[in-house]
């Protein structure tokens, strides 16, 4: 009989008053015992109120720090409150809470330290633009090369991590391009990574509008950030700062 693991679901949210309610409800249905924590990244709408009415817990950042720092806040909370497993899920409704158990399985079985919910393993589709798919393919090739294993969806924020990773991320978590960069950080610290197929929906509201040059510029920046992280090998293993104190 497996001893009951303490699980936390971390939802970073910035102005998601319309999406956050339904997500919390869905998570409650699938994960009855899990602790749901919304990290409010300085929302200016009624996200905060919505979360409280849904009966989930919320930590409110006084102003917007960005997804990296917001997610890290969730990890610090998870570490301080001794959670065994953390689920990362976006607050915009793109991820399907129903698929959380699939992410959990390898963690519970001890098969991996981090599990990524990938859109591209079974080609379940994600209704993303061609531009984004090309970009993600390029990142996928780069990270597969670096990690020496096949990574199909390095930009997916739908993940599950175990206690060791919670401790690491509460101390070190990249701010600029957290999803791919965090994989590099894990690799440097010799943690294991796995992928499992999930489906994602396109953002209900909001449009990506950076154009072709913007996309190329963005890709170059991400690739540069990843390569620089590799050069920082020693500094990404331990770090000072107040979050490092246990």
């Amino acid at each position, binding site marked *: 009989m497996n001893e009951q693991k303490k699980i936390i679901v971390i939802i970073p949210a910035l102005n998601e008053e319309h999406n956050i309610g339904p997500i919390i409800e869905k998570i409650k249905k699938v994960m009855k015992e899990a602790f749901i924590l919304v*990290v409010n990244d300085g929302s200016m709408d009624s996200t905060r109120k919505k979360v409280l009415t849904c009966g989930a*817990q*919320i*930590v*409110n*950042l*006084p*102003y917007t*720090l960005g997804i990296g*720092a917001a997610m*890290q*806040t969730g990890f*610090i*909370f998870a570490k*301080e409150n001794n959670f065994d497993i953390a689920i990362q899920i976006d607050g915009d409704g793109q991820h399907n809470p129903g698929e959380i158990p699939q992410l959990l399985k390898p963690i519970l079985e001890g098969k991996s330290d981090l599990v990524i919910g990938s859109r591209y393993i079974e080609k379940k589709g994600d209704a993303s633009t061609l531009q984004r798919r090309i970009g993600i393919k390029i990142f996928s090739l780069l990270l597969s090369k670096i990690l020496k294993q096949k990574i199909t969806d390095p930009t997916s924020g739908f993940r599950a991590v175990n206690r060791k990773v919670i401790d690491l991320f509460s101390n070190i978590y990249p*701010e600029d391009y957290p999803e791919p960069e965090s994989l590099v950080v894990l690799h440097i610290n010799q943690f294991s990574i796995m992928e499992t197929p999930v489906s994602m929906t396109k953002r209900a509201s909001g449009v990506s509008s950076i154009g072709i040059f913007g996309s190329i510029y963005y890709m170059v920046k991400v690739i540069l950030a990843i390569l620089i992280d590799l050069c920082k090998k020693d500094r990404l293993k331990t770090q000072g*700062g*107040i*979050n490092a104190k246990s």
Partner: protein
Amino acid sequence: MLSLKIVIGLMSLILIIITLELIRREKLKERYALLWLFTCLTIFLFSFTPRLIRFVSEITGMYYLSIISLVAFLFVLLILLHFSTVISKLHDRNKELTQQYALLQYKITQIETRQRAGNTEIND
């Protein structure tokens, strides 16, 4: 030529005075002001030592004003670079403090809720 020396000498002197005044008013921290003072002093000395100017002029083939401008420009670049590193450190500390602040707020809310619940129990 002489008037140029005086103009530049005067400008660097005024900058030194402004810097000192900013320190006095607590608007500029001493540790950052030091670089500025050093820069201004260097320009000031440069502008009034003919031998130094002649030396650099012979090596580089540049004229007086160009040399001074180059020196000033390089120093300013170094100062800006230094500031970028300072800002980077501040950014990190700011992030950590903000995170800890938000988590503290959460803990306080928890304590207050528990207290309120405790009080209502006592009052029943």
